[in-house]
């Protein structure tokens, strides 16, 4: 009885491969789960930084408050939805809208609920730890406790949201198998991160300084510092530029840095790697128009300078990046996730392949 027979047909693990067959639905859920978590983290950081910034501008009137918060709404493209619910763009309304409003699909709560819903649909594909961390976050947001923490100290609340995201991404890295699913998760993460960095940088374009004299002044510097902190980039920036926070250098750093993991170029490089791994194509091979536009932009980032971007317009450049990423998202959806509805008119019925009897 001690010599347990080993199952004979089983190959050793080193000779086995994971199934390369994956449902489009699963790919879609993993991708959006990852995107929404990354998005919630960025919104949390943005709001946290800007609420802290307000401490320096305690004497703002209504108009000034609006000028401070409106660019943040504009950068997310949500200002229309906002004004259908609120009249005044003040700190409380904007942060409430971007944090707890379930009608706003990009609020933190909507992002994390949707992320959790996506994770729930692919529960069998992800690790227990990943789902539980996300579910814990969901239960926290649903509890009355969440709003109480937010009201008594918004910083603690946003800190918590960021930690959930970091926890989830760390668990993904340490418990999820390196399969196609992992590539979709990474594509979602880096695409969202690149997009959010363009939007954070673009905020400064919308902020109108009270007068020309303020350019380069204390307010300007504080705002640029806030931009860096919104992208978790302040310390990384300081390693390169010890003394000044200069607009041009900030933009250059957030666009071009090859080493800072939230810069547009670094995110796009990772995105490029993952896309090629997923499609199995050679490096630098791009087939569809969307992939070519993406590849071209990535090449441009290797050759452009910040001066050239400033001459042709930073805002226009950032919008261009967003368009390329948007179209890439469409392409990924069409290529890997979308199945055209079946033409019922053509009476296409589903059949089983006939079975052969063993005789």
């Amino acid at each position, binding site marked *: *009885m001690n010599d347990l027979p080993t199952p004979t047909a089983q190959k050793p693990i080193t000779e086995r491969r994971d*199934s390369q067959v994956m449902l489009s639905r699963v790919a879609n859920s993993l991708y959006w789960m990852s995107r929404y978590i990354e998005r919630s983290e960025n919104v949390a950081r943005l709001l946290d930084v800007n609420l802290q910034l307000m401490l320096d501008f305690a004497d703002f009137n209504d108009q000034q408050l609006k000028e401070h918060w409106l660019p943040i709404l504009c950068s997310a493209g949500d200002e229309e939805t906002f004004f259908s619910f609120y009249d005044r763009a003040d700190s409380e309304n904007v942060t409430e809208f971007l944090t707890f409003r379930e009608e706003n699909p990009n609020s933190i709560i909507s992002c994390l609920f949707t992320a959790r819903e996506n994770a729930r649909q692919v529960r069998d594909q992800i690790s227990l730890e990943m789902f539980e961390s996300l579910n814990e976050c969901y239960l926290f947001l649903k509890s009355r406790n969440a709003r109480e923490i937010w009201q008594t100290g918004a910083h603690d609340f946003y800190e918590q949201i960021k930690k959930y995201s970091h926890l989830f991404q760390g668990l993904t890295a340490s418990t999820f198998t390196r399969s196609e699913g992992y590539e979709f998760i990474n594509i979602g993460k880096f695409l969202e991160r690149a997009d959010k960095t363009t939007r954070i940088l673009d905020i400064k374009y919308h902020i109108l300084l009270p007068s020309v004299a303020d350019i380069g002044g204390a307010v300007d510097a504080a705002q640029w510092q806030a931009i860096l902190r919104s992208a978790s980039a302040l310390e990384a920036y300081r390693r390169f530029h010890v003394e000044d926070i200069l607009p041009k250098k900030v933009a250059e750093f957030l666009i071009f840095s090859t080493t800072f993991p939230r810069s547009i170029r670094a995110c796009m490089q990772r995105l490029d790697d993952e896309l090629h791994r997923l499609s199995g194509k050679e490096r630098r091979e791009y087939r569809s128009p969307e992939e070519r536009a993406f590849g071209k932009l990535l090449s441009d980032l290797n050759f452009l300078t910040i001066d050239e971007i400033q001459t042709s317009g930073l805002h226009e450049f950032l919008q261009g990046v967003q368009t390329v990423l948007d179209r890439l998202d469409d392409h990924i959806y069409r290529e890997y996730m979308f199945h055209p509805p079946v033409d019922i008119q053509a009476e*296409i019925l589903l059949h089983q*392949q006939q079975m052969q009897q*063993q005789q």
Partner: protein
Amino acid sequence: MIPQSDTTSSSSVEPPWIEPLLLTISHLTRYTYEGPVQDSFNEARLQPVTDQLQQCREFRFRLDPDAQVWDYPDFYSNCVHYFDVQNPHESLEVEAVSVVQTLPESRGPVPEAGPESLLDPRLQEQYFDFLHSSEFVSLGADVWREAVDALPGSLRDVWSDTVAIGEHIHRNYKYSPLSTNVNTRAFEVIKRKQGVCQDFAHLMLGLLRTHGIPSRYVSGYFLNPRKFPGEIEASHAWVEVFLPGFGWKGYDPTHRRQTDSRYVKIAVGRDYADIRPVGGTFRGKGTREMVVEVSVQRVS
């Protein structure tokens, strides 16, 4: 595959072949459809396993229309080839050619094992799936009655009782092609008292499982040198029972004998539904004809 020599069926069972054989097997399945079909998603379980009783030396898998093929091990570690043909096509050919070296049993004699020896939880994990009802083998009253007829009294020794149940089937059931079809369930076989190897395997699984003997369905091939002229060859099916202290051992109820070096195993499962050689779905009008050609040739 028709059992040979009904004349000797009365008493002696021929000794198992222990001579190692090198076999070439080709298995062609051709579907011809009523019209163009599309979105065809399929799985094939056609690659012989490699274990201590056989080595799959070569395996070639051909499709017409051609398509990319992926393979992965399923839940029972069978090798599954997956492919899809999305563009319209009017026929589909799936051909598997393999070269297999069979080897004689090297595990020695089967030890005696009473029912209590199956209770070890470490063993139960290996056979748990193969003790219960499955799609083709429902453990209902009909099967239970037949099981009691086949083996009166309770289980004494797993292997000798397996052989007794096999003898019962061979004695009471008639091999007759076309009397059943691919969807025939074990209880229908009991009603009709006839069938083919697939039916006998399902029936035997029902009887064995009713007596608490873990048993699984085996899909494979079998070298049959004494073929009648024009006899159609198809893939074969038999069962394997789990013997404590030994492992899985094959028994072929169609020929009432333990499997030997003439047998080539492709896949194991709870029943036919788990391991159909080719299965899948497609969209279109339907199938006009299915042709299956199997040949098992001895090389040396």
